């Protein structure tokens, strides 16, 4: 993750997260871990609340597309470490 490019917003404006039945399954422990950490972060960064809550709705059956959305939040946060 460290050498990824930074993002300017935490979510794409055309991002549509749906059931994604055909999507590839990802490791749910990892997905939940990421979600947990980011949810904790909403206390100091309220502006990611919407995005992370959206991703957190899909924890029982995480798919590649949701994982991508979470990774985008991480990329966004990387670029905004000095925003508080």
């Amino acid at each position, binding site marked *: 993750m460290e050498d990824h490019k930074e993002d300017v917003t935490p979510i794409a404006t055309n991002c549509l997260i749906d059931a994604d039945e055909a999507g590839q399954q990802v490791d749910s422990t990892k997905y939940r871990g990421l979600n947990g950490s980011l949810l904790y972060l909403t206390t100091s960064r309220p502006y990611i*609340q919407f995005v992370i809550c959206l991703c957190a709705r899909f924890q029982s059956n995480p798919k590649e597309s949701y994982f991508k959305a979470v990774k985008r939040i991480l990329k966004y946060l990387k670029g*905004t470490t000095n925003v508080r």
Partner: protein
Amino acid sequence: MDRKSTSRTCHLLGSSLISWNSKKQAYVALSTVEAKYIATGHACAQSIWLKHQLMDYSVKLEKVLLYCDNTSAINLTKNPIQHSETKYIEIMHHFIRDHIQKGDIEIMFVKTENQLADLFTKPLTRDRFNKLRTELSILDMKNVC
């Protein structure tokens, strides 16, 4: 899709953000007005709680200003008459009317582009996202120091 809206609220004390919320509504709203009306009701409940909390710190607030971006929803809160179009709205959501009549809360209109709470429900473009983030007094330290 379950056709449920997400209500979002944010509360400012002075210019600081003290409470925020983004939650999917438990009811299927038949119109935008109803969805906004429910959201305004949530915001009202939270404001009243905050008001009570502040009372414990001997801060007495006269009227809490509540900003809503939908004029129809605002009119609905001010008018205690039952319209045929709004009859179906559950009675519990009308508690905001009571508080407005008592003067606990004052409701005001705000344009959509100045609606701070938009940050909590939709994916936004870069400019708008940054603008709203700044207005919530979350600043980029690069520009401050």
